[in-house]
């Protein structure tokens, strides 16, 4: 299955955001759920092996878009590799909050998840990605994720992550025995690096921050990422994060 969905904002009268374009392409179905909020609604299982899905996001200068999903994305095996390509452009003074539910890599899947994020100066972005390595009690499928954020023509963050290579999956250098791996990229600049159980707040060399977290389950992962996001945005988070116990293999 090939599908290309798109969402775009424009600046309306009085400085309001108007969701001007909302192009669904099953299984990528988009629903506007608020003045500047859009949710991805799955209308078919998958992606399945062989699917090529693309989502284009354009946030016009000085507008706001919040993009979420109503449920987790379950990536399933099929004929060959599946691919999800998200291309987002965020204009000057615009705000994009991208916080979908986790991507679950079912056993046997072969997935590629590509994000290309282009930021104009003064763009505000919070971009969260969560991977769950297999459903409950299941070994993980394979996934290759790549994230490239370009700001003002210069690379701000480039990250790849590979799941499903048995030789690397259990390495204490990569993610140990954690079953959930996630990051949040923010254009907000954390005052200083912070580290707590299974989560680190990493100020980038350029204007931005990466929150990187590992956890045993999706709930733990989310709370760790949210702690990192709060710490980045609010500055010092004086309440130390306790988490839900140590990450296996990474105490």
């Amino acid at each position, binding site marked *: 299955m090939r599908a290309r969905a798109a969402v775009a904002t424009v600046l309306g009268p009085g400085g309001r955001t108007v969701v001007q374009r909302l192009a669904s392409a099953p299984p990528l179905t988009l629903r506007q759920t608020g003045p500047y909020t859009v949710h991805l609604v799955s209308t078919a299982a998958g992606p399945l092996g062989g699917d090529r899905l693309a989502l284009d996001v354009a946030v016009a200068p000085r507008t706001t878009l919040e993009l979420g999903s109503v449920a987790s994305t379950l990536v399933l095996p099929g004929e060959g590799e599946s691919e999800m390509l998200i291309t987002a452009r965020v204009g000057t003074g615009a705000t994009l909050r991208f916080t979908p539910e986790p991507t679950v890599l079912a056993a046997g899947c072969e997935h590629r998840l590509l994000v290309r994020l282009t930021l104009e100066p003064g763009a505000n972005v919070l971009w969260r990605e969560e991977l769950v390595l297999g459903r409950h009690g299941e070994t993980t499928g394979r996934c290759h994720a790549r994230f490239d954020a370009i700001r003002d023509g210069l690379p701000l963050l480039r990250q*790849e*992550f590979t799941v499903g290579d048995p030789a690397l999956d259990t*390495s204490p250098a990569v993610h140990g025995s954690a079953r959930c791996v996630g*990051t949040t990229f923010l254009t907000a600049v954390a005052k200083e*690096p912070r580290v707590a159980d299974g989560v680190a707040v*990493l100020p980038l*060399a*350029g204007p931005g921050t990466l929150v*990187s977290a590992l956890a045993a389950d999706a709930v733990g992962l989310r709370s760790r990422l949210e702690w990192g996001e709060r710490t980045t945005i609010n500055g010092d988070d004086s309440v130390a994060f306790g988490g839900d116990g140590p990450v296996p293999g990474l105490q």
Partner: protein
Amino acid sequence: MHPALLLLTDSRLPAGGHAHSGGTEQAIASGAVHDVPTLAAFLKGRLHTAGAVTAALTAAACAHAASTTTAPITGTPGTPLWGRLDAEVDARTASPAQRHASRTQGRLLLRVARRVWPSPVLDGLAAESPNPHHPIALGTAAHAAGATPEEAAMAAAYHAISGPATAAVRLLGLDPVAVHGLLATLAPDLTAVTAGACRAAVHQDPGWAALPACSAPALDLLAERHATAEVRLFVS
């Protein structure tokens, strides 16, 4: 193989590398690495993530140094774009502690390389970037010493595991022969990482955007935890 590669990869190269564990000290402190099998898993993961990235960037730096010093038949040597390559390393190194360790090792290696293999390309790098990231310093030093980008990538990949392996021997009192045996079993991985690095790096100069960017979340966490540790024996 160019003999200079032996000097560049020798742990006795006096460029400060002996005091870096690349996250191993914290991995040991956390209990994640405690014997030869867990060290093997750690090193393999490190090699295929941080090692693959640094090998590609080192090959890119070596190829770039060559392109700026050797005039192609049809043209003149180009002006080095060290700042652009530096930004590519920064973008692939989310952890501030790892960026700091990389620049510290790069600065010390550049200092040594300028005395051991004096060359305009190293002087030019030092003038433009006194604190270069380690792969940029290593790739440029390899070129100054006469090595190829492939050899530079191999040196970088080996550097990504040899220092951490030695740190584990010192910290855990592991049998050094067992650990060297482990390094020997990683030879096919070194070959594969080197080949991948060169495929990506050599023919794209200076189109570095697509170079590998493999992240290792656990290494990021370990690096930041190490930076705030009360007690530490290694710089990184």
